[in-house]
């Protein structure tokens, strides 16, 4: 899941910039790697890939600051018993 999201960000959102290497724990937001339209595309991608709906109140820094955080968010949302 992690690699899948990293690949999407790298290929689709980072303007194909191969010079930027991305790790799961990298902060996508403070470095300005992802701007607001890209974030919407990323959320759409996650919704389609994982068959879930990201609610507006879930679109927060805590849930989307890194690929790691996104993966945890998906896991929590898919299996509510983990909460």
């Amino acid at each position, binding site marked *: 899941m992690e690699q899948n999201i990293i690949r999407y960000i790298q290929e689709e959102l980072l303007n194909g*910039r191969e010079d*930027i290497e991305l790790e799961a724990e990298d902060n996508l937001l*403070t470095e300005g*790697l*992802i*701007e607001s339209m890209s974030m919407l595309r990323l959320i759409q991608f996650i919704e389609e890939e994982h068959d879930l709906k990201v609610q507006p109140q879930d*679109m*927060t*820094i805590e849930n*989307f600051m890194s690929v790691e955080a996104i993966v945890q968010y998906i896991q929590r949302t898919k299996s509510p018993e983990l909460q």
Partner: protein
Amino acid sequence: MIYTLPDSVLASAQKSPDKVAFTDGKQTLTYSELLRRMNQLANALLEAGLQKGDRVGVYNNRGLETGIAIYAIMRAGGIYVPLDTGAPPQLTRYLLEDCGIQILISHPSQRRKLKALLSEVTPLQTLIGWTGAEGLQCSSWEQLAEKNGSFQSPFPILEMDPAYIIYTSGSTGNPKGMVHTHYSGLSYARLTADLYDIDESDRIANHAPVFFDISLLGYFTGPLVGATTLIIPDAYIALPASLSQLIEKERLTIWYSVPLALTQLLQRGVLEERDMSSLRWVLYAGEPFPPKYLRELMLQWPNARYSNIYGPAETNQCTYYNIPDPPQGDDPIPIGQVWGNTEALIFDEEGQQVAEGEVGELLIRSATLMEGYWQRPDLTQKAMYIRTNAAGFEERFYRTGDLVRIDEQGRMQFLGRKDHQIKTRGYRVELDAVEAILVAHESVAEAVVFPVPKEDDTIAIGAAVTLKETDAADEQLLRQYLQQQLPFYAVPESIRILESFPRTGSGKINRPAIKADLINV
């Protein structure tokens, strides 16, 4: 007396030293701290060899250091040049070269982008804010704390001296640098402070990145009146639910952004759960606000007043329209009237003032007008209309290239661009420039780039190309190629490859037909 932009910081630091000048929601910088850190960095700049009028790049995202950097550069006698960290490295290297920038101020958070930027030759000699670059004189933000916190300027700096250069896209594909002076920047700060009654009790939201002229309200007007400016960190910009929380927590009184940011707040900001009653002005600029979203927002935040601000960055903005009530229908919102110290002309094709109510190009003379384009007297001359006044001196009007009309109520209405320039997500894009880059690709024979109106009333960019040989390229390859050359917002959303273009009777490419075909697909 205040006649340069850093004088605002000096005056506010003297009047209210412990008042917060800039905050990012977590850290704060009082006016006395801003003064000290501005002086320390100004001293470091002089030590790095800065001479009066030298251009210094600011390569950072939204943050307190950006505020310190722009004031320190101007304080030292330099000209600050804000750079878009999201732009492709080639484009940024072009700007560094074009502007002859030898000193760059950045931040460790930009290290990845800096590495990419510095992987090829640049004119840079000094990098302040990150110590990881080889071959450059580097120093960190921490090291600046050791510098002298008071500053004695070795250069006389007058209000007519250049203070900052903001770059825009140019019709030949190369961006143009708009040179503004302390006078044009301060005039902007004074006019906006007066128009919206901004004073030291205000808390201003700075949503725009520093390379966007909308950021001048937070960076210039705030310190002039001694208000507090919240420099919204990038993390919040992308996530409306967190952003609305921040607005509530910070008790902001003045908001200023592109309409898109407000639309996103409206759609994903969970506004019904937030108390926004502190907001007294919601200002927007950059592109038209779809009336349906504006209406929704005005009903959602009934306590605030709303104002539509218009103006090309060449003028630092120049007109305003205070929206009296939520719009009833879907008619575009007027751009209103020119603000103080500003004169407007509306010219027809022949350069004559149009008759009352007729459409023409808007020309602007204002205290906020730029000096000209950086080292392009030819372009500056082309952009200006000169009128001789009674004393025999020249009055300069900027030709905006925007078509306007005065309606029955005496309000100016914006009717679009004269040429091929559009606004997408608040950014200005020259469609001709995108076309020129596409055509420059080795496999591309012809290209057409056009605006695509979207369902949510925003404008996207579409492109169609024909190839020199069948299958010589595909959409993905062309997209990657464009992404190397253009900022993200100028890359077309779709690039269609056609066998051939339809032609008009005279053999010209039938642009309307291509556009109509592709938009309806």
